């Protein structure tokens, strides 16, 4: 097993071959055939996930991503540890409006005279909740529906894909307004309200992507092989089709995580986001938009926090895909 199990080592020399016709097959030294051919007799065969975990542990990309995500999680769980100012108990003073950095307030103030740093720290929880849990819900619902539609085809596909189309066409804004006035959310809108709304209207996209990816893989030789070896239909879907269809799903899911956090901001912009009493990056970005030209900083900082979060999940996704997807992995 090579530690460098990423793609370019193999792909790149092969592609470059045209200019160096004499080595159109990569040099033996470059292609660790020994490693590929060596049968590992010492270990019992690993499960899909066990193998993935072994791969992950050695990847710097994964380690950095994991570290960043842990930090973000810590901030959202214990914001008080990271900010001396608690913006939910100390109200903002208009006298500080648009003020620059000051002692104890390293990032300056918003138009309302609120401490930007404290708000970014305390806004993490809502934003991460919205991003993370919406993505999980969407992965679950969209993934299952899309995988079933793509894998079974026929009438299953016809029904699931058409339900998908119907949901796809429902305008988010219409759904959001209706959901927000439901009795359970009416008086108390939180990040979870947003999770419900965004997941209800966000799963169709992921379902379509999953369906397409599964369609592409389901007729592959290795699936046939597995089926002829007696693997059940569901077993083949879970163990052979899905891991091979993972790449686009992971890409869309990790980007969507950021998109959902931003969607909260856009809904605030349209007047149906979180109430102003809930601190979130989206709310702050929206509030800072009106003074964008005179004081862009209060907008920039939550956007940077959002970028870092999205970046860490994109890196995690890349690492996860490399580890799980047999096509990107070689031994």
């Amino acid at each position: 097993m090579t530690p460098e199990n990423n793609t370019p080592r193999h792909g790149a020399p092969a592609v470059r071959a045209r200019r160096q016709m004499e080595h159109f097959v990569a040099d033996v030294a470059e292609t660790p055939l020994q490693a590929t051919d060596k049968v590992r007799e010492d270990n019992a065969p690993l499960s899909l996930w066990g193998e993935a975990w072994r791969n992950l542990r050695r990847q710097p990309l994964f380690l950095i991503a994991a570290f960043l995500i842990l930090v973000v999680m810590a901030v959202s769980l214990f914001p008080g540890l990271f900010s001396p100012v608690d913006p939910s108990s100390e109200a903002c003073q208009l006298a500080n409006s648009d003020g620059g950095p000051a002692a104890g307030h390293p990032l300056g103030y918003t138009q309302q005279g609120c401490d930007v740093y404290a708000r970014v720290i305390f806004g993490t929880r809502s934003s991460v909740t919205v991003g993370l849990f919406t993505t999980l819900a969407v992965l679950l619902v969209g993934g299952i529906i899309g995988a079933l539609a793509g894998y079974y085809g026929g009438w299953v596909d016809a029904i699931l894909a058409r339900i998908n189309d119907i949901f796809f066409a429902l305008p988010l804004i219409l759904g959001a307004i209706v959901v927000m006035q439901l009795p359970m959310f009416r008086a108390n809108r939180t990040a979870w309200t947003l999770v419900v709304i965004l997941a209800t209207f966000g799963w169709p996209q992921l379902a379509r992507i999953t369906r397409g990816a599964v369609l592409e893989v389901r007729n592959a030789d290795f699936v046939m092989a597995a089926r002829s070896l007696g693997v059940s239909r569901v077993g083949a879907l879970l163990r052979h089709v899905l891991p091979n269809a993972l790449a686009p799903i992971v890409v869309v899911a990790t980007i969507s995580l950021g998109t959902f956090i931003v969607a909260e901001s856009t809904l605030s912009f349209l007047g149906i986001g979180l109430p102003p009493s809930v601190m979130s990056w989206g709310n702050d970005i929206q509030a800072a938009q009106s003074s964008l030209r005179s004081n862009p900083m209060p907008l920039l900082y939550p956007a940077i926090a959002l970028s870092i979060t999205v970046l860490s999940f994109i890196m995690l996704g890349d690492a996860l895909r490399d580890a799980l997807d047999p096509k990107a992995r070689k031994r």
Partner: protein
Amino acid sequence: MRFSRTSKALGMAAIAALALTGCGAGGPAAGGGSTGGDTSKVILVDGSEPQRPLMPADTNEVGGGKVMQMMFAGLVSYDPSGKPVNEVAESIEGKDGQNFTIKVKKDQKFTNGEAITAKTFVDSWNFGAAAKNAQLSGSFFESIKGYDGASAEGSTVETMSGLKVVDDQTFTVALKQPESDWPLRLGYTAFVPVPSGALKDPKAFGEKPVGNGPYKMADGGWQHNVQIQLVPNPDYNGPRKPKNAGVTFKIFQNDDAAYQDLLSNNLDVLQVIPTSALKNFKSDLGDRTINKPYAGNQTIAIPEYLPEWSGEAGKLRRQAISMAINRDEITKVIFSSARQPAKDFTAPVLDGYSGSIPGSENLVFDAAKAKDAWAKADAIQKWDADKTFTIAYNADKGGHKAWVEAVVNQLKNTLGIKVEGKPYATFKESRDDATAKTLTGAIRAGWQADYPSLYNFLGPIYKTGAGSNDASYANPVFDKAIADGLNASSVSDGNKAMNKAQEILLTDLPAIPLWYQVAQGGWSDKVTNVDYGWDGVPLYYDITGK
């Protein structure tokens, strides 16, 4: 009052409000006086898509209202200061404030050639009031005798008994009771004459209205959601004579887009500078801006049907809230002085306005007195410390969030109670709770004048059982004071009585006045002679090219 369902103005003003009746009469223009200028220029201004067919009595929001005001001439129009001047009327007389004799000028015509007589007015008003025609502004005729019969649900009566044609040029109006300020209302769009064709087929007319005002619609002038083109009416000879070759309303969905267009000279006049540009517009536009108070205000209404806010304790609490709000600071910081701190319940441009009515000290920020009043209220009826005081607003349009947040923070800081802004997703949702009396806290309110009168800011909102009385305020002493004002023999006596009535309001504070609206607009370097009327709408007919 007119309100905007879709755009800008909702924001600028009041609970619904928002109105901007576009009317006005000639007057001195800013930046260059009324001298010269290129009269061959077509002026490109911002507008919004009318929500209903363009029938004057069916138009009650800004988008259509501005167009109607320019296409129609009523008995009177208002000059820039809000004083009514005769337009189609020769004279309006009525000594007792209840029976009026109105004479119409001779040889008045619609642009289709149809003559305008006393009968035209009577027919138009009857049409507007009759329930079967379902005109939104029908209630403007409610003071006229016989209105109740014509406007009742399912009624087939099509005329009001209070209107009588005497001869071609004369008709009489009998009101249900004396109302000294009634003639002031006649400049509102609902009272203009409409041609007989409009009464037969209002829907077709609403697409291509024909009027008698300073402008008429160009052929195919209304391109829905895009623009409305008006060209001068050569036969118009009233006080609002056009000084340009036409006015085109470019329809915008939001003010920010319109502002960018103004900066790049793709728009000539922008009525309201958007909040996102308040900090920059002076450096962007130089002296091509205006800052002029108009007849509108912003308040927050606190319903008296909520137990914490009723009785003596409620009154003290409302005073505490009022004194805990630093209006100077908010108008400066949040609005960059695009508002003026309120000193009463009306607006400073109105005839009879006074900024020093006894009780107006309750509208001045005083943290110590506010805490004191709150403590006194607590002594009568304890405020539950876990309870959150909410200030509701509609978040779909208007940019109320910023100032509500500022008020929320000031209340938290001064009174130490829990306060939150409560956004409604849509305007109609907020109206539902207000009319059904199911509010759970304060609600953003305010008023934009329909016609320039103190009464218009008081009667329709604070009289017992009045239609726009969101606070459910009921005080017979105040009702009596208002009635005295309406019965007064002269406008100035009436105004005095109205301000007496305001003394009661300033103590009871059914709504807490925050600030007066200020028209803050800008124009491109291609036009000049831009000025605004008493209602915050530019005097479009006066604008010329450079």
